[in-house]
């Protein structure tokens, strides 16, 4: 393809440059969030503690969410002390940088598609960059819907690491190029897009569940007068858990659809919709673990901590399928080297 202005090779250059730039900006966003957490260590944030004490009272179903309480993340600036203001400022810089990094990242994936003249989902490098984009996208959506700036640090750390590994590992990085014949199908777009979106949401769900575990542990073990630092600027563990559940509730049906789309494609490409190929097997395992998560949330004695651990196991199986199976098992899903 030659548009007259830029040819495919230049799109490849633009894409690579955008990925480098995005990685750097994610790292800066991560630094801002680290500063946010570090500065919060000095803040005793009594308002936040009060906010969380409120959560621990038996809460009427459907009552106003405590997330917006004064002192919690994202509170109106004019109610904050100088120290809190500093923390708040670092957090906002982190979010702004994350949005900038996301847009650059999006340019990277888009330019990659133009360079390769196809959906940019044909090899490990492209899955990693697109998957990381889906994680940031899921975070930004959650940020808008549920004010989850408390996820900022974990998300930027995760995405920076994934992009860094993808860019710097010679075994993973490949220049844009055409696809092997098995991937010539519009089901590639449907299957991979659904899987990537579900994966992004699983990641946000897992990070929320992780923070839920930390927060609920701290709520059990920390005396009220010792409650200082970033963890106490998070909403109460019940609210964190609710966010985790909402994100998972979005991700599980989407993952089911991704597996279904894969099965339909497999029927066209390989003549069987399900063949227990290692990738398929682990997709099934991930599905079963998340099914267990949803059941655990409805089972007495399994809510809370156990359910959160199951969610983390689910994400671990997803990651293993994405990375481990490509590296260690040979199957029909092995394409283009890795």
């Amino acid at each position, binding site marked *: 393809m030659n548009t007259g202005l830029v040819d495919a090779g230049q799109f490849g250059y633009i894409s690579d440059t955008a990925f480098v730039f995005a990685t750097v900006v994610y790292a800066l966003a991560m630094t801002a969030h680290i500063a946010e957490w570090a500065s919060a260590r000095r803040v005793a944030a009594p308002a936040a503690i009060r906010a969380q004490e409120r959560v621990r009272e038996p809460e*009427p*179903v*459907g*009552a*106003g969410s405590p997330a917006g309480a004064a002192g919690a993340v994202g509170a109106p600036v004019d109610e904050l002390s100088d120290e809190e203001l500093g923390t708040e400022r670092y957090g906002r810089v982190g979010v702004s940088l994350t949005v900038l990094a996301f847009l650059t990242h999006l340019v990277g994936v888009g330019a990659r598609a133009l360079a390769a003249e196809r959906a940019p989902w044909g090899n490990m490098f492209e899955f990693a960059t697109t998957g990381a984009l889906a994680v940031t996208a899921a975070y930004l959506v959650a940020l808008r819907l549920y004010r989850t700036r408390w996820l900022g640090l974990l998300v930027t750390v995760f995405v920076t690491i994934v992009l860094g590994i993808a860019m710097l590992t010679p075994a993973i990085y*490949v*220049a844009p*190029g*055409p696809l*092997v*014949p*098995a991937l*010539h*199908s519009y*089901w590639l777009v449907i299957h991979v897009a659904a899987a990537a979106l579900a994966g992004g949401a699983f990641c946000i769900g897992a990070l929320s569940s992780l923070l839920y575990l930390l927060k609920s542990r701290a709520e059990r073990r920390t005396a009220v007068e010792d409650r200082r630092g970033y963890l106490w600027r998070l909403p109460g563990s019940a609210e964190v858990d*609710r966010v985790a*559940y*909402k994100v998972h*509730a979005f991700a*599980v*049906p989407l993952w*089911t*659809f991704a597996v*279904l789309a894969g*099965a*339909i*494609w497999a*029927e*066209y*490409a*390989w*003549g*069987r*919709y*399900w*063949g*227990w*190929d*290692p990738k398929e*097997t*682990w997709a*099934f*395992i991930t599905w*079963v*673990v998340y*099914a*267990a998560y*949803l*059941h*655990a949330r*409805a*089972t007495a*004695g*399994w809510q809370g901590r156990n359910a959160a651990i199951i969610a983390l196991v689910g994400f671990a*199986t997803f990651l293993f399928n994405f990375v481990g*199976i490509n590296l260690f*098992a040979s*199957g029909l899903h092995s394409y*283009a*080297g890795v």
Partner: protein
Amino acid sequence: MRRTYTPAPALSVLETLRWAWRQLTSMRTALILLFLLAVASIPGSVIPQTGVDPSAVFAFRESSPELARWYDRLGLFHVYSSVWFSAVYVLLMVSLVGCFIPRARQYWRSFRAEPPNAPRNLDRLPVHREWTAVDSGAVVAERAHRVLRDRRYRVRRYVDDRGDQVVAAENGHLREAGNLVFHLSLLVVLFGVAYGSLFGFKGGALVVEGEGFSNTLTQYDEFEPGAWFDPASLDPFTFTVDDFAVTFETAGDQRGAPRSFQADVSYVEAPGAPAQQYDLRVNHPLQIDGTSVFLVGHGYAPEVTVRDGNGDVAFRGPVPFLPQDSSYTSLGVIKAPDAAPQQLGFEGFFLPTVAFDEQRGPYSAFPDALAPGLVLTAYHGDLQMDGQPQSVFVLDKERLRQFEQQGGEPFRILLRPGKTVQLPDGRGSISFDGLSRAVRLQVSSTPAKVVPLVGVLAAIAGLVASLFVRPRRAWVRVGRRDGDTVVQAAGLDRVAGGDLVGAVDDIVTAIRPRSRDMEHA
């Protein structure tokens, strides 16, 4: 001395069964079974599976026979049809049915039930609003009824014991319906998958360019029928592979990666039907009735002529070789049973692009046939082709002797197209006449595959409903207090996390007339 004790009242058989059933159908058991299912799936992704990669299983048996014996005992080469794996999912399905039946009954009852009466004190509910209306009680109640009905609530009106008019409303029955549909759909999926694998088949065949295939058992190189598959039900089609083209990446990181495969086939759906053309590609299978023909791979079939010691042609034709790696280094044998005085056999590699290396000797540098060559060793003696049917890719060397050079080294042949090599002692010759390609085809039929598809779609719809629909109850009570019409509205969510405040306020706004000056707040 015997101690006397009073035994605990023994459970009767029926009670024991009921206890076991309750255990099995409890949510905790379902959770544990889900974990077991996840864990039981893991070995099949690590250990080679007969149904996925039979050659890997074969190689494993060769390299560690002792371990393979244990794996066989545990069914680890076919995990997903093993007894223990089946036990887990059958138990899970039983548990599912046991959960499903009482819940379906319960749902049916609640589906037919009317919205429940309003609690005595609506102001104790999580969201509660109260105002004084100008209109008469009947008008407000009528309006509340309409507002709630428009918002897809089921509505019931009654007058309570205080003489107040009450509108009771309930919605969100779809949540439990979705839950039930989801679980029922899983049974449908399992049934569809089982039906397809019992009555279906999967077969493979290597067809050389220019040659044909007819859909009968004898034409298959491998054939895996379902347990209840009837060979007489094979569709009577035939086809010929007229031409096969393949292109590879020639530069860059991806050099050697395949870029396109295409086979032009002409097929006849049934004897007497007209011939039709089809371009068979990956992701573009040929469908004939319920049977699909897939292009799953390709290889090379060198055309060779073997002459025996008498100078007579003992064999002539294309011989398919099996690709072993991404450079299409291909393994194969050539058998000439008609050779006299002794039968001749050849074993070795076909290399599409011959290159040399100090350590490895000849190897293939590129998958396309740029500089093809055959690297063979030769045998004479008895091929033993009279007894049991033998693989076309293996030489039975028990009664064969290898041709040797002076000094005892095996006699090695490197053959280029158009060339002929003479065997030692005037025992014959082999010529490499030309090169054909062969396509690996998979022919399979999975009846009723639409059943699992519909099942999964229904499962997704049910799952979405069960996760996102929020059952909600709302009440509006209209009464006379000190000469005023006092209206109370309240809501109750049966699942946390919804915007109950917004929902109640929306209802209140709709019931109260727009011009606020008519109201006393």
